[in-house]
């Protein structure tokens, strides 16, 4: 759908983006990750033709991205605002018309989304009367009103309470289900794990990682298992001896525990089970993959160390 090909951007002798390439497939949610100042916003601006790349190009369905393609893209920037003195209705219609919608279609879509978010009563309210969360909802509606095939969302969950985070998350999944593609930039790694199919991690303008979420987590797998058992904790620890390392533990009841264990040497999960099976009653055993947050931190730190060396 969208292909970012060898994009570089420089500003005042600094490299903001350095030869970044990746693709966004049809019906895919792609997490664009990176710490503050990594170059994510610049990249998203380039995809929206707000900024121009010094090298490389962006293609849309195989064609070099042009102004006409912007009608099929919805962009929600991180730093977003609304005209405070306008009413909700007029504001949404105005932006929809700038996106190329006819007045009648804009009104139809407005009614649809206000109804969907159950906010019909806000129609005549001025933006300045809305709370931050309410304004965020209006911004989201403005982004999706023209039914774009591609959504580029920069921190779409910021400012929302958990209920509304859930609402927006479900909305994104629904859009994905209808074949829309989404680039999602967020620091909320739970959301990345939950809704993203793939992720690209950039830092200091360079692409550090790209792949499916599961694949990235497996790539950073440290061989940690979570074992839940009933029995004596002392007997369990004694049975492990030196072949395993206890990382963490949780008490569920007086004699029910969950323990996170890292394999040492060449030990595998079967060795673990053999070691403890006669000592405690095992309830469950599962492999624990690193969270995306850990993947994120590890990758960034690894880059730092590399630079320092």
């Amino acid at each position, binding site marked *: 759908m969208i292909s970012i090909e060898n994009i570089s951007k420089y500003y005042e002798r600094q490299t903001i983006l350095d030869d970044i390439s990746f693709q966004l497939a049809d019906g895919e949610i792609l997490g664009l990750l990176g710490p503050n100042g990594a170059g994510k916003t610049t990249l998203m601006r380039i995809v929206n033709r*707000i900024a121009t790349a010094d090298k490389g190009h962006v293609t849309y369905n195989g064609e070099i991205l042009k102004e006409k393609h912007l009608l099929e893209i919805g962009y929600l920037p991180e*730093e977003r*605002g609304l005209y405070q003195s306008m009413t909700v209705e007029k504001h949404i219609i105005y932006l929809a018309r*700038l996106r190329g919608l006819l007045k009648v279609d804009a009104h139809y879509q407005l009614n649809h989304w206000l109804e969907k978010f159950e906010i019909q009563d806000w129609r005549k309210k001025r933006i300045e009367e809305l709370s931050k969360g309410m304004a965020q909802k209006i911004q989201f509606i403005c982004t999706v009103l023209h039914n774009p095939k591609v959504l580029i969302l920069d921190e779409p969950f910021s400012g929302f309470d958990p209920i509304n985070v859930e609402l927006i998350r479900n909305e994104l999944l629904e859009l994905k289900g209808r074949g829309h593609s989404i680039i999602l930039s967020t620091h909320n790694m739970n959301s990345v794990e939950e809704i993203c199919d793939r992720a690209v991690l950039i830092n200091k303008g360079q692409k550090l990682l790209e792949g499916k979420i599961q694949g990235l987590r497996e790539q950073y797998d440290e061989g940690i298992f979570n074992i839940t058992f009933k029995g004596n904790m002392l007997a369990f620890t004694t049975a492990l001896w030196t072949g395993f390392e206890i990382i963490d533990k949780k008490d569920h009841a007086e004699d029910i525990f969950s323990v996170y264990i890292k394999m040492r040497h060449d030990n595998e999960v079967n060795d673990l089970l053999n070691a403890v099976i006669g000592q405690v009653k095992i309830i469950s055993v599962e492999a624990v993959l690193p969270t995306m947050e850990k993947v994120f931190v590890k990758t960034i730190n690894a880059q730092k160390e590399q630079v320092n060396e």
Partner: protein
Amino acid sequence: MNKIILIAKREIAERFNNRFYRWLMVLGPLLVLGLVYLFLSNTSSAKQHWNVLVMDKNEIFSNKLAVTKPDNLSFDFINSFLDYDEFASNAEYQKYDLAISINEKIVSNKHVIISYRVRPPEKVQHQLIYLVERRLEEIMVSEFTDLSVEKFRDIKQSLTFNLKDTYDPKNENSTTASWVGFVFGSLIILFVFMFGMTILRSVAREKANRIVEVLLSMVKARQLLAGKILGVGVSAIIQFFVWIAIIAFGLFIFRVTVFPDIFSGSFVADEVVRNQAGQGLTSQSDFVELIYSQIHYMNMLVFFILFFIGGFLFYGSFFAMIGAAMGSESDGQQFVIPITLLIFGAVLSGYYAIYNPGTTLSSWLEFIPFTSPMNMMIRLANGFEDGSAWQLYISLLILFVAALLMLMVAGRIYKNGLLRFNHRLRFKMLLQWSKK
């Protein structure tokens, strides 16, 4: 184009939702009318008593002007003719405020000149005209006809009166016409400044509340700039036309109700002479003349609109540029000061041109885009000599070309500055952004 119109429409709607804009639309012209009222009121409150010298060389009037002399007027007669200099400087005539010249051919040429030291109010002018007219009627009836005075009055040809300043009989030092141009030029500058600042505030607000990034994902920076300038410009023109409509209506009301004596037969007669003689003779006060007769409204309005559009695009680009480039609202203020000074300079240049017409500098000022809207309005009010009207069009052309260039530069700075926040704006930055 459609997007530019959408942006412009939103800007216009925002202006109309703005209380200050709406109040200004009504209070602005009322303020102007209030000032006009004060001036008009002052023209009718002058000296209480007027000494009049009647210069009747052939003693046509026989040392008599009125049977019952008005309380505020006293007359002395001499049977000689004094030229303006004598009347102005001879000590023995200093006690006279006015001199009426009854020429020896008055019976045939019907022409009377009234010269003054201090311009008499309209009421006194009418009294004098009335007395001279009546006296001449008596003489004509008694010496040349068998008709009654009433009958003669019906068929007679009216006298024409010319009111002249003793110290400036050829009206050479009059700056009235220039002031008309200055008023129009000042209106352009005032509107350019007011609405230029509106552009700046509007751009700065969009930047501050960050909606600009959303907008830029839908429209090009140049479209946004064009829509904004178009919308604010149209708002300014609407405001201006409402001003003109209210002021014109107010002047009409003044003319027919509050100051009905401003216009009389003498005015019409004077116009005839003016046309015949082809020179600027005056019978009204300068100010009355300025607002009711000297302004060629249609002509001035057409060029006012053109120079306003040119001036607005030219200066508006500066304001939009600063609005887009500023890192914070207070940061941009330092760059507003130079523009304000330029605008103030334009007003001063107009003042200079009024009192120094025809100098090399005042000629240049008519073509420099910063000052041409003001100075060409003054020139236009004074009229162009035959064959020199091309200067007006050249000035307009230069203004529009300069505005176009400024818009191109402003477009670049606007595009590059819009998404920069919280920086300290420097002149160097503007230069860099203008090249990108």
